[in-house]
């Protein structure tokens, strides 16, 4: 299982790009951290997830003080 945004997901073997596409997430609108490092967008389609990988997918939301 792959840890994606804190949840165990059965996504081993899938690329980041394919995961985003299947989840309906626009890759231009997110940043992906893959095992603690920012993953550049051109690596989304070539980075295949493995069991125990930790992936964070984030975007901008409203915020202030």
């Amino acid at each position, binding site marked *: 299982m792959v840890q994606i945004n804190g949840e165990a997901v059965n996504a081993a073997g899938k690329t980041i790009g394919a995961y985003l596409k299947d989840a309906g997430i626009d890759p231009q609108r997110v940043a992906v951290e893959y095992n603690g490092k920012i993953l550049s967008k051109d690596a989304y389609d070539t980075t295949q997830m493995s069991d125990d990988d930790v992936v964070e997918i984030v975007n901008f939301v409203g*915020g202030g003080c």
Partner: protein
Amino acid sequence: MEKDQLVIGGHAFDSRFILGSGKYSFELIDAAVKHAGAQIVTCAIRRTKPGEQNIMDYIPKGVTLLPNTSGSRTAEDAIRIAHMARELGCGDFVKLEVIPDTKYLLPDNGMTIEATKVLAKEGFIVMPYMFPDLNAAKALADAGAAAIMPLGAPIGSNQGLASKAFIQILIDEIDLPIIVDAGIGRPSQACEAMEMGADAIMANTALATAGDIPMMASAFKSAIEAGRKAYHAGLGRVLVRGGAPSDPTTGTLHD
């Protein structure tokens, strides 16, 4: 008078009002930004939830997005979130928040200094949120901060300038823009901060919890402009005791 601009990290702004975008509907962001005359809008970074509306569709063109590192409890968290923000592609600005305390949401100055050092070296335009302490502000300046953002009162409290005397010290002693962040609950408090010589103010909750958000944005704009003008004009003096006549003292019916 020359054009009175706010300059942060080499970027010049005509507006001195930094607007938050939290706690109100995205549909109101455009109106709030326009009524506030704001050129900088803050946002946060969170885990993506598929299907959620995206704030980027609601931020007016030409506005500088200032991502914050809210949710960071350590310097490492904040550095990590800053990297994510930069990857999201809206420039090098970051409003640095390191907040281990969940009750009062008070920032940790020590860890904020640590994170500022790292991020400034990496080319970020770092705007640290801090508890108004002169020594910490000096350390932040030395660490490469582009502005200092002292709190007026706890985030979201609308309590105003509870730390007024200490913010004044920062304004007087620190050679960077001082932007009063957090706590400002009403336009009069924003005006007062500007009269004191603050370079800008930031507000979010004061608007987000107001009855009419765009109208309150406009009220803040007027207050900030009035306060800035008063600062430039130089405030009239205060008499601790007694009064001084402002009418001619001769020619009264008693003469």
